[in-house]
Structures are given as C-alpha cells and as structure tokens.
C-alpha cells in the first residue's frame, strides 16, 4: 500500500532526536522511532503519538547533558593536569611567556584607564553639550567683564551666562583655623545652575545671590568646621570681609579644566573697586549656556565682532569653544593634550600587540617539540577534536594565568602610576564589567591564536610518521615569525628613539640659559602695607648679609600669561605695523636682581629724575617687532602712558620655553607692583629665610608666611612634560623587555632546530665563536631591518612633538645610530646566550640517533 500522505512525526522533535543520539546508530534509530510513532498513532491517535514522540526526545536530554558535562569536565581536568606538567617541565619558558603577557596586560589596563579619564574631562556636567567658553581667536579665554551680560540679553539662543574669575591665595579664617587658601573662585550666581556642582547642603539656586556669601567644598567644611553644620556660619575672608556659608558641595571632580574648593559671588569684588561691567580690558572668563539643539556656529557668526564693536582696538574675533574640548585641544592650533592621548593609546596597543605576538611566537615554537606527544595520544585513541580541545585549553589556561598576574601587577603598580600621572585611580575601576569583558576577550583571543598552531596543525600528524621521527616540524610559519620579530623590534626601536629625544629636549630646556638669573630668587605677593614703607623695608633687608638684592614687579618671571597681551602700542615711525606686547612694571633694582644685560642705552636709574615718569626700557624682541633701527631716544606710548625709550635689554625668557620671547616694555609703575623678588646669597639660605620671615610677620601678622623660589616654579612649569617623559621611558623599557623575551624564545627554538647542523659543524671543526656568529647572523639581519622601518616613523612623530616648543633641539643623526646600536646589542646579547649554549653542546648527543 502506498500511503498518499506520509504521516511524519513532529519535525523539531526528530531533529532533537537525531542530535542527541549517538552517531553510529542514528540512522537505525530514526527509523525505529518512526515505526513506533506510527504504531502508537494507529493505536492511540494523533495527540497521544505527538506527546509520546516529544517525550522520547526530551527524555534523552538529561543524560546527554550530564554525559557531555561530566566527560568534558573529566577531560578538562586531565588537560589541565597535563598543561600544568608541561609548564613545570619547561619552567623557564613558561615563566617568560606568562610574564611577558602579564606585563603587556598590566600596561594596557593602566594606559586605557588614563586615556578614559582624560577623555572624560568635563563630561559629567548635565549641560555638558551646551556649555561653552567665550574664546578669542588667539585662544585666550580672558574676556571683558561686560561681555556676559551683553550676550545674555542680546542673543535669544543664549540660555544663561556666567562670569568666572580665579582668586589668588586668600586668607580664610574661622575661629582658630586660618590658611591661605588657593582654591577660590568668583562667579555669577548662574554658575551653579549651568555647571554641575553637587550640593550637599544649601540651595544652589540662591546660594550666591547675596554678595557676602560663600559656598565651600566638603573637604573645606570638614577642615574648618569638623562635624559641625557649616551652613549659616560666618567665615572671615581677607581680614576685612565676613562671609556667610550658604552651601556645601561635594568635592569638585578632578577631571575638569576648572578646579576650585570655594566660590564667592562675583558681586563681592565690587567692594575692592573691581569694575564688573566694562569693555576696556580683559580680566574675566565668560561661560555661555546655549539652548538645546542650537547650532554654535550660528551663534559664533553673531558674536564674532562683539568685542571689536565696543572697543575698536581689539580686533580679535570672538567665538564659542565647547568646554568638553578645553582640556584636550589647543584652540587655534592642532594638537594639545589630545596628542598625548593618541600617543598613549597607540602605546597601549603596541605593547599589548607585542606581548601577544610574543606569546604566540613562543608557544608555537615550543609546541613543535610536542609532535611526539601528539603521535602517542593518537596511538592510544585520541581523536583530532580531542587534541584540538587539549591544545586550546592549554593555551587559554596560560593566558588566563597571565591575565590574573597582570591584574596583580596593576594593583601593585597603581600607587606609582598615580604619583607619576598625578591622578587618583583606585582599584574599583578594574572590576568594572566593561573592562573585564574586554580583557577576557583579548586573553581568550590570544590563547586561541597561540594555541592554533599546535591545535590545527600538529593534530594532523600521522602517529606512525611522528613516532618514527620523520615528520618535518616547524618549518611552516617561519616567515611569519620573522615578520613578527621585525615588527616587535621596530616598535621597540621607535620607543627607544622617542625616549631619547624627549629626554634630550627636556634636559635642553631645563638647563638652557634663560637669560636671567633664577637661582635662589625668593618671591612672594605683597600689597599696600608693604608698598607704603618700601624704601625703609628694602634698606633693612639689604643690611642682612644674606640678601643680595631686592626688587618689585607686577608679575614675576614664569608667572606670565602672555595670551593677555595687548596691541595698544604707538611709537615714532609706526605706520601700520601691528605689535603685541606685555607691560612689565619694575623698579630700579630689577636689572641687578635678575642679572639682565643691557644691549643699548641704559636701565632706569635714580640719577635721572625723569625716569620715574617717562622712561621705557624695551627688550630686543620689541625692537625687532617695531622695526626700529635706533630705539634709544624714540617716543613710545602704551595706552595713555607717554614716554621715551632709554634702553634696550637683552632678550630673556620671562615665560616658559614653550613660547618665543614676545616684545616687552618695562616702566616704573608703582601702583602695579604686587610681587617682591629677593635674590638671596647661596651661602646661608635658611638664615636669610628666617630673617625674611620675621620681617614679613611684622608687616602682615595675620597672614601665614608663604613664598616660592623661582627655580622651583620654573621646574614645575615643565612637570607635565617630565611626567610624560618618565612614563614613556618606563613603557619603553617594558616594550624592549617584552621584545627580548620574544627574541630569546625564538632564538632557543632556532637553536633547537639546528641542533644537528651544529653538531655536524662541530665535528668538522668549527669554533664556538664561528657558530655563534652563524646563528646570530640571521637575527641581526632582522634587527637591522627593524631599524630601517622604525627610523622614518620616529622622525616624523618626533618632529610633530617638537613643534610644541618654540625652542627645540635638533635630534641629529647620532641619536638614530645610537638607538640602532643599542637595539643590535640587546638582540645580540639575547641571542648569543642561546647560541653559545648550543655551540657548546656535545655533538654526540645530537647525532646519536642518525
């Protein structure tokens, strides 16, 4: 009987059955099941048959799962035992392998964390995407104080604005605690709503409304009030002002371009005669909050000439710079901190890459020695899939150990890393799921890649051939390995070059003669009290043998911000030339204190009574900028101050070597003095300091005695570069170390391979040195190749970095040659150990089995 319609059992269930049944009998089983199904179908009907069939399918499931899990675990336990034994057998190798990868992982974790932190600056604000800083075309964020109010009323796209000004060190006092706090700023009340400042106590909307208020950070609250309630208490500011605490906020996060520990309302500065609504000069920052979904470029077009409209001498266009870009990007040039972010990201990638390559190389090299093991296993019944599983579990086990070790390294190195980078990372970030997933992914990937050679290639061997020893091993993949080694060494050489150049540049800067004497120069802020009695105080000081010279100025060297330069300069023969200049207010002893040199004319002198009112001394840069041939005697007018040039001073670097020396004019303007600089004899500095301390305590009894030394300030100015230089050098050592590990492993592998050849050569009379040369020659070739690859890349990137400095070294060819030689030496050292070991081997051992 031919059935017109085949009554087939449920399709899904039959698939499940086929899957769960042992392969050799599944054909028969399928038929049997079908027979039973029809039988039950006839006897009990469709529904029962359906249920029965599914029952059968499901009933097979538990035992299948149990069996596979049980056997998998048993086999896994066996593989792990073997893996452990293998590791112990070649403990040197294994340690190198694991160590290399662990270091690579640790570096990557640290660097990635740093990069993430840098990229997160200022992104925590609720309004981060709509917050901007008003910036001039030259990158300066210092704007007129009238700007904020004007923008807010004139442009509907603007939701709110706030002015922002830093306070220098100010005296804060509550009961018995008083300190010169440096974290103070003044803002408009709207600041607290525009920027996300998390208030713990008090109301951000009203906290800064009254002029005599202050909001403080949690740390400050604890410092001054302990566990008492801070809000409502009165703190004393700068002796004269009593301020009520109207709010306490959570310590402001470190990843922002702004840093402050207390805020005063800007209104209060009116009390010390500050003009808060003028266009005449720039002294404040203006932050702008735009309405959501407003296109900032539209607003840029509108505000571009606002400042020029109100003050025609300042023609700089104004625009809005997103605050999320402030930390990382320079405004009017490409680059800025973002380059370092890129550099370190690349560094992390390189190091991890090198470490993984290493791991793969070494594991692969080692495993070709296990051909015999493969043969044995196959002879006693292992299937190819078993072998694949075994080799993969071994390599993943190794990478797993490396991962754990790497994480341990990170925990250990975290304090050091924090101190170098100046950040404050804690261990919690390690436990963030995203990082863990990424890391596990990378380690598993490396494990799979490393294990793939033995797993996929070795497992193919025919047992008989392998046990007999005839299988050719290890020749496959050799060119690939060569490429990997070359890549590793190029990266290392690149890093060596980078370190050398950075080191040289920093040395150059720090030791360069800046044109003025900055050793043992003490400086500190002063105010009216000091100035009123200046002459007396100064002569008293000079009587002390420790004090060489005393001078007053408005801004001490290296404290300049020349972005606030101006162009309102007029001189004889100016025509249409434009010039940017800064005004340095000095006194008669400035030249002597700083050891400056005059190149034309003379310096200010008490002998000439007109000097005090009308004399200008300019620097050589000013002469060049103004295009004067004989500056001495020419008229000069800056703003409304007329005068004659009496002398030219030799250029000196009054700000950091990042900038070229800009034109400067010196004049005696006593009302501008705010710093006193004192040159101290190097003989007995502590004695001089205590003398000065006594002096200052007499003048300013309520203020703690605080000062700085100029050379410290200068050194700190370069701290970022130094930190970065340090970091890069550490990572370079690591990269080199890892590459050497790789080379070491590879060399031993090659030596192993050529055992017989070496044995024969020895028998025929070769010397040890000849053999070492023979074996090393190949590697030296690779390292030379790596050099050729690395040099152009290093040249390119280093030049880009050096652009940041106005004064830079010329790298010169010697550095390249030096790094090349270093690399070759390191490689030679690594390889020769293996070569020598092989060369001393007894030929009888290697040739025994021929």
């Amino acid at each position, binding site marked *: 009987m031919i059935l017109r319609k085949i009554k087939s059992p449920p399709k899904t269930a039959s698939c499940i059955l086929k899957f769960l049944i*042992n392969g050799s009998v599944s054909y*028969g089983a399928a038929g049997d099941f079908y027979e039973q199904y029809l039988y039950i179908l006839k006897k009990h009907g469709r529904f029962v048959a359906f249920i029965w069939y599914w029952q059968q399918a499901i*009933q097979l499931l538990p035992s299948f799962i149990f069996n596979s899990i049980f056997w998998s675990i048993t086999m896994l336990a066996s593989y792990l035992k073997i893996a452990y034994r293998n590791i112990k057998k070649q403990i040197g190798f294994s340690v190198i392998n694991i160590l290399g990868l662990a270091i690579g992982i640790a570096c990557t974790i640290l660097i990635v964390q740093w990069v993430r932190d840098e990229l997160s600056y200022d992104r925590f604000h609720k309004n981060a995407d709509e917050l901007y800083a008003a910036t001039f075309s030259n990158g300066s964020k210092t704007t007129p104080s009238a700007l904020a109010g004007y923008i807010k009323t004139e442009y509907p796209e603007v939701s709110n604005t706030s002015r922002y000004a830093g306070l220098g060190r100010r005296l804060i006092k509550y009961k018995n605690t008083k300190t010169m706090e440096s974290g103070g700023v003044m803002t408009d009340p709207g600041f607290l709503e525009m920027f996300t400042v998390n208030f713990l106590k008090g109301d951000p909307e009203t906290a800064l409304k009254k002029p005599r208020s202050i909001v403080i950070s949690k740390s400050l609250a604890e410092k001054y009030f302990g566990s008492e309630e801070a809000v409502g208490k009165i703190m004393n500011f700068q002796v004269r002002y009593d301020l009520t605490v109207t709010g306490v906020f959570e310590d402001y996060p470190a990843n922002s371009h702004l840093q402050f520990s207390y805020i005063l309302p800007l209104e209060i500065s009116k009390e010390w005669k500050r003009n808060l609504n003028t266009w005449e000069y720039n002294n404040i920052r203006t932050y702008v909050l735009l309405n959501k979904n407003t296109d900032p470029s539209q607003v840029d077009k509108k505000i571009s000439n606002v400042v020029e409209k109100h003050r025609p001498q300042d023609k700089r266009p104004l625009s809005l710079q997103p605050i999320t870009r402030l930390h990382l990007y320079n405004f009017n040039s490409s680059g800025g901190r973002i380059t370092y972010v890129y550099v370190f990201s690349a560094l992390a990638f390189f190091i991890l890459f090198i470490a993984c390559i290493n791991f793969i190389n070494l594991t692969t090299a080692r495993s070709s020695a296990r051909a015999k093991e493969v043969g044995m296993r196959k002879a006693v019944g292992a299937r190819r899939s078993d072998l694949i599983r075994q080799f993969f579990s071994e390599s993943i086990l190794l990478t797993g150990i490396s991962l754990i070790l790497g994480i341990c390294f990170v925990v250990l190195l975290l304090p050091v890393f924090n101190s170098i980078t100046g950040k404050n990372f804690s261990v919690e970030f390690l436990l963030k799921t995203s990082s863990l997933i990424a890391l596990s992914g990378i380690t598993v990937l490396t494990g799979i890649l490393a294990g793939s050679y033995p797993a996929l290639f070795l497992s193919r061997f025919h047992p008989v051939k392998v046990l007999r020893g005839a299988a050719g091993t290890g020749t496959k993949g050799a060119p690939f390995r060569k490429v990997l080694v070359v890549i590793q060494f190029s990266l290392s050489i690149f890093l060596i070059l980078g370190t050398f150049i950075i080191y040289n540049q920093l040395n150059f800067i720090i030791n360069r003669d800046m044109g003025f004497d900055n050793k043992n120069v003490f400086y500190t802020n002063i105010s009216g009290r000091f100035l009123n009695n200046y002459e007396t105080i100064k002569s008293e000081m000079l009587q002390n043998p420790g004090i060489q010279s005393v001078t007053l100025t408005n801004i001490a060297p290296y404290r300049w911000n020349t972005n606030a330069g101006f162009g309102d300069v007029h001189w004889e023969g100016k025509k249409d030339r434009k010039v940017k200049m800064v005004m340095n207010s000095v006194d008669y002893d400035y030249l002597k204190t700083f050891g400056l040199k005059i190149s034309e004319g003379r310096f200010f002198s008490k002998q000439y009574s007109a000097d005090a009112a009308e004399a200008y001394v300019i620097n050589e840069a000013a002469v060049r900028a103004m295009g004067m041939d004989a500056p001495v005697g020419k008229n000069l007018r800056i703003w409304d101050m007329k005068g004659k040039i009496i002398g030219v001073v030799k250029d000196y670097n009054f700000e950091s070597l990042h900038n070229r020396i800009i034109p400067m004019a010196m004049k005696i303007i006593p009302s501008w003095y705010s710093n006193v600089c004192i040159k101290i004899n190097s003989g007995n500095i502590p004695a001089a300091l205590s003398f000065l301390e006594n002096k200052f305590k007499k003048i300013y009894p309520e203020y703690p005695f605080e000062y700085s030394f100029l050379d410290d300030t200068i050194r700190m100015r370069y701290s970022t570069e130094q930190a970065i230089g340090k970091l890069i050098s550490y990572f370079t050592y690591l990269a080199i170390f890892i590459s050497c590990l790789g080379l070491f492993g590879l060399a031993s592998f090659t030596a192993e391979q050529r055992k017989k050849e070496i044995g024969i050569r020895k028998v025929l009379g070769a010397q040890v040195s000849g053999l070492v040369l023979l074996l090393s020659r190949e590697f030296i070739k690779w390292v030379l190749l790596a050099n050729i690859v690395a040099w152009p890349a290093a040249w390119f990137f280093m030049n880009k970095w050096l652009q940041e400095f106005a004064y830079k070294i010329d790298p010169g060819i010697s550095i390249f040659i030096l790094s090349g030689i270093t690399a070759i030496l390191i490689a030679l050292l690594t390889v020769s150990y293996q070569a020598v070991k092989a060369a001393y081997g007894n030929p009888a051992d290697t040739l025994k089995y021929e």
Partner: protein
Amino acid sequence: MRLLSRTEEIILATVWRLKDEAYGIEISNHINKNTGLNWKFGAIYSPLGRLVDNDYLKTFEGVPTPERGGRRKVYYQLTDKGIQALKELQNVHSAVWINMPSLEVNK
C-alpha cells in the same frame, strides 16, 4: 580483555537471543518485558552506539519499508569480539554464582 558492564552484557545477550530479529525496538521491548527493567526506549541507543563503536556489534540493513518512512531497518549482530566477551563473562559469572549459598539472612 576487560569485562563487559551490566548494560553491555544485557544488550549483547539480548541481541544474541533475538538472532535475526534484533533491531532497536525489538531489543528494547524484549529487555523491558523479560527482565522487568524499565529502560526508556530512547536510552538504548547510547549503549548500542558505543558497542558498535567498540566493535562488539555489527550492523546490517534490511529492506526499506513505508512504515519507517522509507528508511531501511538496521539489524544488529554480534561480532566475534562480542561473542568472545559474552563467553568470558559467562565463565566468570558461573564461577561466581555457582552453588551460591542462599541470600536469605536468618535472624
């Protein structure tokens, strides 16, 4: 040679008994009916498969029938190795069980 496990023993013995009729369903029913063991129908295929892999059993195929959806019936037969294993087991078994004192424990 290693001794057969219990399941293997039961299956091989049944296959021997069933001579030419030994296929999946028949083996399973026979065991369940005669020994009282309540083995699930599908559970027999795992041990059957292992026995085939280890060369205790060999298979031969019958005629395709419509009741099986056009597939052939797969019959199982003992190989020499399988017969050998059963013989050995029988020897060991009789040696162990012959003249066994009663398993009743008298208090």
